[in-house]
């Protein structure tokens, strides 16, 4: 997904001399082309993420359209105050591109996992948070991000290239996408969980359950109208995310459902307020399995829940 995003960004950067890309000494293989377009607009600031965010702020205050890249734990958790004051409060056009969100860095351990980033940023006014779920979403998001006004966090996950959306997308930041229409049960997934949930749908269908699948790529601003509509149509609503269930997509949806007095059953799937190390040590597949976030485990949880 990152590759598709950066290829699209490069196309725009060729014709738009305001686009700058800053990196904090990571992602060497992704940026060779961008560097060739204009080495003056590609800057490796070094291992200095807080510095990078504020350099981006200064560039944006001087009319530049700035993209910052690192892995999500370093890009977000390390720099929250710079993001709060200098990007959000000043409402600047800076895009934060976070790779390896969730616990995709597997055995690299907790320092390299990001399970809190959505929660941290969701509480900051002016911030927009989008997690693309497949290559089509990533490409459309790259295009939409160019002229987007205000700070935008783009949450990339595992660098696989799943295909979820069969046809051309109607993509708009802030608007959820109905991937597949079913009945009774609604699954709302974001980012890296969209594809595993799509696979889980097939397992559920074999069991006679035909849910609706919604891609909530934008976690903030949330597509409140769509969630309200779902609340009226489904007996069971599930959110699925590779993030702590506190503060992420599940929390955001729960806030809407609680306020409108949703009478159905609601469950958040994600990491249940623990560090990923509590699941054990291992690769991403191992951790996802322990977290109950593989297609099989997601399907099992849903089947169990809807029987209640």
């Amino acid at each position: 997904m990152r590759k598709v995003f950066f290829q699209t960004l490069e196309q725009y950067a060729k014709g738009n001399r305001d686009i700058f890309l800053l990196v904090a000494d990571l992602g060497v293989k992704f940026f060779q082309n961008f560097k060739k377009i204009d080495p003056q607009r590609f800057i490796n600031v070094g291992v200095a993420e807080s510095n990078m965010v504020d350099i981006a702020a200064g560039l944006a205050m001087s009319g530049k359209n700035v993209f910052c890249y690192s892995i999500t734990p370093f890009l977000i958790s390390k720099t929250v105050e710079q993001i709060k004051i200098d990007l959000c409060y000043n409402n600047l056009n800076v895009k934060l591109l976070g790779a390896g969100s969730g616990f995709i860095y597997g055995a690299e351990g907790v320092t390299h996992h990001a399970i809190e980033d959505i929660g941290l940023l969701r509480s900051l006014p002016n911030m927009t948070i989008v997690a693309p779920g497949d290559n089509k979403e990533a490409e459309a998001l790259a295009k939409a991000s160019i002229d987007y006004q205000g700070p935008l966090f783009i949450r990339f996950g595992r660098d696989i290239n799943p295909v979820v959306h069969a046809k051309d997308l109607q993509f708009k930041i802030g608007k959820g996408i109905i991937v597949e229409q079913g009945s009774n049960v609604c699954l709302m997934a974001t980012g890296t969980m969209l594809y595993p949930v799509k696979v889980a749908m097939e397992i559920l269908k074999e069991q006679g359950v035909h849910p609706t699948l919604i891609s909530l790529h934008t976690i903030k601003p949330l597509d409140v109208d769509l969630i309200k509509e779902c609340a009226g149509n489904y007996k069971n609503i599930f959110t699925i995310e590779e993030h702590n269930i506190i503060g992420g997509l599940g929390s955001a949806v729960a806030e809407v459902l609680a306020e409108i007095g949703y009478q159905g059953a609601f469950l958040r799937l994600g990491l249940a307020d623990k560090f990923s190390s509590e699941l054990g040590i291992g690769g991403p597949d191992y951790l996802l399995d322990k977290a109950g976030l593989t297609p099989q485990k997601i399907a099992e949880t849903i089947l169990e829940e809807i029987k209640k």
Partner: protein
Amino acid sequence: MEDKEKLRGISKEIRQEILEMIYRTKSPHIGCSFSMVELLVTLYFKILSVNSANPADPQRDRFLLSKGHGCPTLYAVLAKKGLIEKSLLENFAKDGGILEQHPSYNPKLGVEITSGSLGHGLSIGAGMALAGKYDKAPWRVFVFLGDGELNEGTCWEAIMFSKQHNLDNLIAIVDHNKLQAMAKSSEIINLEPLKQKWETFGWSVKEVDGHNLEEILTALAKIPFEAGKPSCLIAHTIKGKGVSFMENEPCWHDKFPGQEEYQKAKEELK
């Protein structure tokens, strides 16, 4: 002389062990691990006061690996020193294992801090050194930093703090291999003149060839380097040291060797 031969032999074993751990698990950071070997071997076998029977002994010297991505070297040295079971290395970075590719705080396993996100170790070390001073404790705090890590502003905050509090029980060791993840340090953030920077901030500084056992031993023979000042050892090292085709090649920051490269490396490390 005898000491140096022994340390040289251990260093060789450690490099062989690192190669196996990394090849087996397709792990990153072999170059960054190789640059640290002689320094860690000298520290653990000649300088640090540690207790293999009780790694968490309250009287131990603290060794903080702030450049956490170099942990294969730390783990291999801890195992060789008998502070952890050698069997733990077999399960390094494996599903259900104990040791990750960046260390998690566990003094019982000789791991003093969680690291992997750069720029934390020196501040934590300053806190420990401050506590040690307050308690008039005999133990010392050694913080092992990467040179790229010195891009992080927190390092310089800790450097200023440590002099302010005259933490002469704190020793920073900089693995100055002059390469970082994406390129040469000089092309990203030029650190030079590094020695003068630390000195201007009030530290007592020595420079050594970080692969020369005699120079390391001599430099660390007396700590602190000067009474009342924190000490900094700038060790000039070679990223990928020991394997010709890895030396000074930036790609070995996170690349792992394929089968052919593994065989070649194994041959060179014999």
